[in-house]
């Protein structure tokens, strides 16, 4: 191997009693695309922060060529060609593309004055380098997510970057945008720039990277060539456990449909969507970002009410024009973004569980029955296996998977008929993901009608009894998961688009 861009040797780091990294080594060659994977809390982000100089390691060192550092400052990291593209891209939404790209390098040069002509020149060069077509005067806040990311990439390239670290870069991108991003990554590779690609999506790891490193509990489990990796091994390395895929087999399907949707539409978002859902079924809805899948869910939950078509529940035609009316018909919704839409993080687990069923545990005048409240909380903590010894603790003390269980508890406590989940396992560890899938399948067996919206195709295939695919705001196919495989699904989703 040619001389490496970076060599991390036996780095250890503790935060108080928590050993975040227990001696991790990593070596990346120029032009290498290296994938770093691991569950939440495995030490990925600590490792990135040590490489980029945010944290100092307790022991071990970092080598850049001949230079050896036992500790590195952010500026030294940049000088050695390390650039991090954070998940939130670290942009200024209120400023222009030009300024967003140029600021870092201007600051590095310790410039005090602004020369707009120079700004433009530098920014033009930067966007040209990856062939990014954008109006330099546009406000970054007005750009689509994918373009924001490209702005962040352009900015990273300003510094003679030798290693670009991308922290879960594909989370908010559509498939098409991911492909475009991968093309850019390949062109960077040709320019000799190494990429450390943080991801836990297996298909991406296969598609883009040559080598991979997996961390678990602060230890490096394995570094190897991606070609030698497969699905089972990947899961095993990540979790240290083997999981059996539990394919959903509907058992207690009702005769009468629970929810019927006929030619439902919301102008500008989706149109002519029809399907029906029976008790005991799990309906999987998938489609690309922007296909209207999320808006459909929001309409069914009354947040952005539909303006065309009919909704029937238990045979009765109903109007769902607000969250309250959706809740009146016993519909629950687990939102896409758990942290900002699903939970009240600093509040107690207990209050997070009971918030949507307060009227059931209080008198008519609104006085809460403390006994009922306590028994409800105990019941749901136990039933869903929320890992906590005290439900009065704040919700942000829980892991992602347990937080998702709290969101589920919030809705299940309401005696639902229909539960809609948007991205039920986004950002959840593999172990917790299996737990959640098992819970959902059980709920269906107990007579709930469930709708899962997800772009995690294996999840959809494994957990649905029926799948509908949305594209350009409408349903393009209704499929039986027994009869298809993943590739066919994506063909339907992309079909005719490229």
């Amino acid at each position, binding site marked *: 191997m040619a001389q490496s861009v970076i060599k991390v040797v036996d780095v250890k780091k503790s935060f108080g009693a928590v050993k975040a990294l227990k001696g991790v080594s990593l070596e990346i060659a120029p032009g290498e695309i290296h994938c770093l994977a691991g569950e939440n809390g495995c030490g990925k982000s600590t490792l990135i922060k040590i490489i980029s100089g945010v944290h100092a390691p307790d022991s071990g060192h970092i080598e850049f060529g001949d230079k050896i550092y036992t500790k590195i400052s952010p*500026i030294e990291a940049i000088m050695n060609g390390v650039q991090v593209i*954070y998940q*939130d891209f*670290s*942009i*200024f*939404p*209120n*400023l222009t593309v030009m*300024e967003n790209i140029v*600021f*870092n390098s*201007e*600051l*590095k040069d310790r*410039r*005090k*004055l*602004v020369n707009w002509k120079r700004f433009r020149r530098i920014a033009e060069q930067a966007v040209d380098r990856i062939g990014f077509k954008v109006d330099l005067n546009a406000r970054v806040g*007005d750009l*689509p997510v994918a373009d924001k990311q490209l702005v962040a990439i352009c900015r990273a390239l300003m510094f003679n970057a030798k290693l670009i670290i991308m922290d879960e870069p594909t989370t908010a991108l*559509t498939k098409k945008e991911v492909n475009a991003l991968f093309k850019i990554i390949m062109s960077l590779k040709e320019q000799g720039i190494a990429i450390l690609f943080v991801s836990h999506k297996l298909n991406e790891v296969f598609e883009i990277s040559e080598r991979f490193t997996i961390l678990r509990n602060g230890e490096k489990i394995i570094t190897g060539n991606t070609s030698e990796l497969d699905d089972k091994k990947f899961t095993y390395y990540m979790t240290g456990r083997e999981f059996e895929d539990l394919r959903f087999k509907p058992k207690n399907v009702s005769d009468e449909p629970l929810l019927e949707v006929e030619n439902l539409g919301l102008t*500008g*978002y989706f149109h002519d969507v029809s399907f029906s859902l029976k008790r005991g079924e799990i309906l999987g809805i998938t489609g*690309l*970002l*922007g*296909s*209207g899948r999320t*808006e459909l869910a929001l309409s069914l939950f009354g947040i952005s009410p539909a303006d065309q078509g009919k909704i029937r529940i238990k045979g009765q035609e109903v109007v769902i024009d607000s969250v309250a009316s959706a809740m009146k018909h016993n519909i629950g919704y687990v939102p896409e973004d758990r942290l900002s839409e699903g939970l009240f993080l600093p509040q107690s687990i207990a209050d997070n569980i009971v918030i949507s069923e307060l009227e059931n545990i209080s008198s008519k005048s609104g006085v809460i029955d403390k006994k009922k409240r306590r028994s409800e909380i105990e019941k749901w903590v136990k039933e869903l296996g929320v890992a906590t010894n005290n439900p009065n603790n704040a919700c942000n003390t829980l892991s992602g998977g347990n937080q998702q269980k709290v969101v589920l508890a919030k809705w299940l406590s309401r005696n639902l008929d229909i539960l809609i989940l948007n991205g039920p396992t986004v950002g959840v560890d593999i172990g917790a993901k299996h737990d959640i899938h098992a819970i959902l399948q059980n709920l269906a067996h107990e007579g709930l009608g469930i709708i899962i919206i997800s772009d995690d195709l294996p999840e959809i295939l494994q957990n649905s009894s029926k799948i509908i695919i949305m594209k*350009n*705001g409408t349903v393009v196919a209704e499929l039986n998961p027994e009869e298809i495989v993943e590739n066919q699904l994506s063909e339907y989703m992309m079909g005719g688009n490229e």
Partner: protein
Amino acid sequence: MMGKKMKGLLSKHEFYISLVIVLLCIMIEIRSGQFFTPNNLVDLSSALIVPGLFAIGAFMVIVSGGIDVSFPALASLSVYATTRILTDINYKGGILLPIVMVLVFGALLGAFNGFFIAKLKLPTMIITLGTSSVFKGIMQGVLNSTQIPNIPEGMKNFGTAALFVAKNEQLGLTSRMPVAVLVLIVAIGLAFFVLRYTMFGRAIYAIGGNETSAYRAGFNVGRTKFILYVIVGAVSSLAGLIRTCMMGQMHPTNMLGMEMMIIAGVVLGGVAITGGDGTLTGCMLGTILIVMVQNSLILLGVPTYWQEFFLGALIIVGTGISAMQVLRNRKRLVSKKLGEESS
């Protein structure tokens, strides 16, 4: 009903507020016939000097994502201290020393604000409420402030010095354009330059847009904020000095309470209270509107005690419109984005 053009007009704040100002001018002119008289225009400009200077400071703070309610108390304290010292030593010189003194006092008091806000990263509104109380307490308690009827000659002369005199032949009224208006003009020019052509100015916008990003990009966030509050302290104190000079005497308390009006003007000018967005032009237009409402109600034949009511209504309507604007823009953006992706 509303054409595209109208919508475009409404989305541009400066345009919109200019329209309101023009309408108000015309209304006053029709009612009184006295608006476009030279002396009224000069009176308005001279009334604009102090609020204009305050507004520049308040504007920069709001753009950086903060809110400062302490500047009138801060200015009162530094101007009172300056005037007291100078009267006590029987100062006979020109305006230069008083200016230097208020700038120094103002910068020091601004640094006091800056310490809590920049170094300890505490919420600006609560902190400036606290420092405002401290400044008032020092002035009224420790310094035992009283009205100073005879301010030093040099200050008085500066306050009354006129660039030119405008006459209203019809009513036989004359108005002097104070030299101090030059201070406002220079300050606006400097602020424009700093905000547009220095990295410090861009840092203020960047911090207001996203503080974490600003830190990661390499802006020295703490230092920028600290310097910002020092500057605001100095500019506000200068405004206070001009006011005292123009009045020819020092009332320690008569600037207190102006903060709300100034902030209202800045926000009316389309400056986002959440930081990061807004132009100096908008800020000045908003301030002009407020000053006009305050000064011109008499010309409209409205009793002065209606003033507060109109100000309140203006703030509510102005902020209401811009809040609705933000909501609409966000919605439009979402649908635009969806349109692009599904096409």
